[in-house]
């Protein structure tokens, strides 16, 4: 007999996500993922100055802050034919790298760790043993017996206060937790360290973009100027600060994040290295140009798609090809003028809110009807997983030496086969491994920036097309970015110097969407099927897999409008 379980809210994510599962004989037999909040940012963008769009779409998400702004300036530049100066490209790369490292570390400790780490068990740990283990896996200096004794004492006082705050009502003591108390204690210590550390690296955004979250971007380049003889510009002091921030970040990743990841994975690999694989298709747009964005061959992360886990074939991805990407709304609370079974390329997309769900408060959603604010994108009709695992697989399958090296050495250290990548744990590990790669690339980009400046190139902005009078009457553009959570694309239509249409196809839209017209599940739903559930009232296993994707629902949910020649037909809501 199937039992229906609702988990809403899914916490430790960005945004509002509801998951309902059916459990039969201790295993998940069906799963539904629903986005339950909508704002309508694309509608709001209509009629505005395209140079302002980065600020609006930046507010799609404050967790992957800056990533939509970067995509937006690329989109407008693509439409208007603007190339940015090399320094601007490098500074954008550095800001994106800082985001990756920050976002992935925060995801691992603040958003995901509590699925694997039983914080209450840490109270039973022997600090001397914790210290011994910590020192055996890393050179990180904060690892003395006294340090762990202190952390444990502080945490005990906290628990004894009876006010457990953010740790209240966790699944503590659940049988699926497998770490010894000492490893739990190390993880608790690093949870607190990561929380304090994360506020540092974002200062890269503050130097170049003036603030974080939501740093400033600029169509044509970056807003900050470089002048090594001036206090009011990016000078030697500012550059040294950025260099130190990345050096410190690399140390934290190498000495804390990666050793913890490998240690924790060691305890869970036997089961979670085979659970949660889900879809067999992977999509990556690639990113981090080392020779201009218009030259994808120069990307540090390659572009491509993989179908059926066939790592011997990388398929070519073209986001502007209407045959490649379509979006469906048959299970989403919108309606299409040509009928809800149609799939439309974003450039021909349209949206009209059509909420047919139950009136709140409700107990259950009806999954025989529309059930989410998230649309359903498909690549050549296939559901695709996007994110760190897709990127690592595309990089690995492309034979890029850096990717091969980091993947193979980790698989060897954990003594697991390549197939273990196709799992919940594989997804979590891929995120850590790419963080390691990004740390290295950031330092390369930083050195290139210094070299450029040393050689006398201080340009950060291309103003040739700044004045709207220089624009064509109509222009269309696409911007693609590999956001920390996966392949992200924006689409713009500019008419008479204003935004006629603006659309976003976002990583979590790919992963969290409801099923399509063929009934194919998207990544979240598919990855849950077959997962054993120890205790239906405490479905910790669901959180493990859903969190392995690092959900970002504010990004996933928005609405689209018609574009092109029929723009004037669009109703404004």
């Amino acid at each position: 007999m199937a039992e229906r379980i609702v988990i809403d809210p899914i916490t430790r994510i960005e945004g509002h996500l509801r998951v309902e599962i059916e459990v039969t004989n201790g295993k998940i037999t069906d799963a539904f993922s629903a986005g339950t909040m909508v704002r309508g940012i694309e509608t709001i963008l209509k009629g505005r100055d395209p140079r302002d769009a980065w600020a609006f779409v930046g507010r799609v998400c404050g967790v992957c802050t800056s990533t939509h702004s970067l995509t937006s300036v690329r989109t407008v530049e693509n439409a208007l034919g603007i190339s940015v100066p090399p320094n601007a490209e490098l500074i954008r790369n550095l800001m994106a790298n800082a985001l990756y490292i920050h976002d992935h570390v925060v995801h691992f400790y603040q958003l995901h760790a509590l699925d694997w780490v039983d914080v209450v068990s840490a109270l039973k740990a022997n600090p001397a043993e914790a210290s011994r283990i910590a020192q055996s896996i890393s050179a990180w200096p904060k690892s003395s017996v006294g340090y762990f004794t202190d952390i444990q004492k502080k945490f005990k006082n906290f628990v004894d206060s009876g006010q457990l705050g953010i740790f209240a009502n966790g699944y503590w003591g659940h049988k699926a937790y497998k770490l010894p108390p000492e490893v739990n204690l190390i993880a608790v210590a690093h949870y607190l360290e990561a929380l304090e550390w994360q506020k540092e690296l974002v200062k890269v955004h503050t130097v170049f973009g003036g603030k974080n979250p939501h740093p400033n971007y600029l169509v044509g380049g970056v807003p900050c100027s470089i002048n090594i003889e001036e206090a009011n510009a990016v000078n030697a002091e500012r550059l040294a600060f950025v260099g130190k921030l990345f050096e410190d970040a690399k140390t934290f990743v190498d000495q804390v994040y990666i050793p913890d990841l490998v240690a924790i994975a060691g305890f869970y690999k036997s089961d979670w290295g085979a659970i949660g694989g889900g879809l067999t298709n992977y999509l990556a747009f690639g990113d981090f140009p080392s020779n201009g964005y218009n030259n994808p061959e120069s990307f540090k992360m390659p572009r491509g798609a993989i179908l059926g886990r066939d790592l011997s074939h990388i398929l070519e991805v073209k986001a502007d090809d209407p045959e490649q990407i379509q979006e469906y709304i048959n299970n989403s609370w919108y309606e299409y003028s040509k009928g809800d079974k149609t799939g439309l390329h974003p450039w021909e997309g349209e949206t009209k809110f059509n909420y047919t769900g139950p009136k709140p408060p409700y107990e259950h959603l009806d999954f025989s009807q529309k059930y989410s604010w998230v649309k359903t994108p498909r690549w050549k009709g296939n559901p695709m997983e996007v994110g760190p695992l897709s990127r690592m697989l595309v990089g690995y399958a492309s034979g890029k030496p850096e990717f091969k090296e980091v993947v193979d050495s980790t698989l060897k250290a954990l003594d697991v086969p390549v197939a273990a990548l196709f799992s919940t744990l594989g997804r979590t590990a891929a995120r850590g491994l790419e963080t390691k790669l990004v740390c290295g690339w950031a330092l390369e980009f930083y050195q290139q920036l210094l070299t450029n400046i040393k050689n006398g190139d201080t340009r950060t902005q291309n103003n040739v097309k700044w004045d709207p009078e220089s624009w064509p009457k109509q222009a269309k553009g696409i911007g693609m970015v590999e956001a920390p959570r996966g392949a992200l694309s924006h689409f713009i239509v500019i008419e008479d110097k204003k935004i006629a249409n603006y659309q976003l196809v976002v990583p979590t839209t790919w992963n969290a969407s409801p099923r399509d017209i063929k009934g194919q599940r998207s990544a979240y739903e598919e990855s849950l099927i077959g997962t054993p559930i120890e205790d239906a009232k405490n479905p910790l296993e669901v959180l493990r897999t859903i969190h392995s994707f690092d959900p970002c629902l504010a990004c996933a949910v928005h609405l689209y409008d018609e574009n092109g020649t029929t723009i004037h037909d669009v109703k404004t809501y």
Partner: protein
Amino acid sequence: MENHVPSFYEDLKGKGVSRRDFLKFCTTMAAFLGLEASGVTQIVKAFESKPRLPVIWFHFQECTCCSESFIRASHPIVADIVLNKISLDYQETLMAASGVQAEEAYKAVMQKYPGEYIVMVEGSIPTENEAYCCIGGRSALQILEEAVKNCKAVVAWGNCASAGCVQAASPNPTGAKPVHKVISGKPVINVQGCPPIADVMAGVVVHLLTFDRIPQLDGLGRPKAFYSRRVHDTCYRRANFDAGLFVESFDDDGAKRGYCLYKMGCKGPVTYNSCGIIKWNDGVSYPIQSGHPCIGCSEEGFWDNGPFYQHLPEVAGFGIETTADKVGLGLGIATAVGIAGHAIVTNVRKHKEITNEPEEGSKVETK
């Protein structure tokens, strides 16, 4: 796990021990520990100490930038706030529990601490159709109305909760409204900005805890301590404005020398915030210092006061008898006559507000 453990004194009181006996016990304890007389007070305080302030933090229509900003706080750091200063019993981004267990956490606070807890809100509330934001099958409005009924005060984080922010920009498709427009009868502190500066957020929390009262607010409900100065008046580039030294295009010679960004559309003259004083991320920089004009993110309706790169007309306050357009190269002829009146009126109105504000801070104490 239960949330509330009574203090030692509450426990004794419950067992019929009188205050007099309790104090006697503390004196004995002090003597036993070899403390001087002054030590007695500390012991009394420790035993009587009240539970950490319970806080329920909701997310509605938002992007989580406020939560992200909050964890960037440097004094105190967020771990200190969360572990030692408040009891953050419901916060979807950070909390361990999900689903039913998460909901139970905030319901427990409402039951155990009526009139004691603070509700913090990140995000606006859709009113066009309540189903535009649902959590656990209930609408944002239903959740908020229930939670504020017995709260002590509400903190509205950021522009979303204070003024509706981006989703309330024209044409506001979901009917997004800020907290103070959908609830009544409770003090609401609007901590403005998109997001608010991390240490301003921490500062508001510390103010509530240390001074046991709500900070004084301006006419828009913003704490005066952080929102009574225009970015323009506290900007380190102000001297360039007064001297008529302007950036005329991005990355030009003036930009490389840090001239005033007024002509590039800076909204500093109509924006009240602490960016020029506290700065961002532990004092590293702020938008103008990093070369971008202020977009005015701590003001109501700033999204519709653009475009961002069109400069404000005729801002008063020059040290010399002229305006920016006359002083500069004359390129930025006042193109925005339409918003001129608005901008100036805003300023005049604000000046009045700052000088004639009722002392709200003295009216509503938090304890």
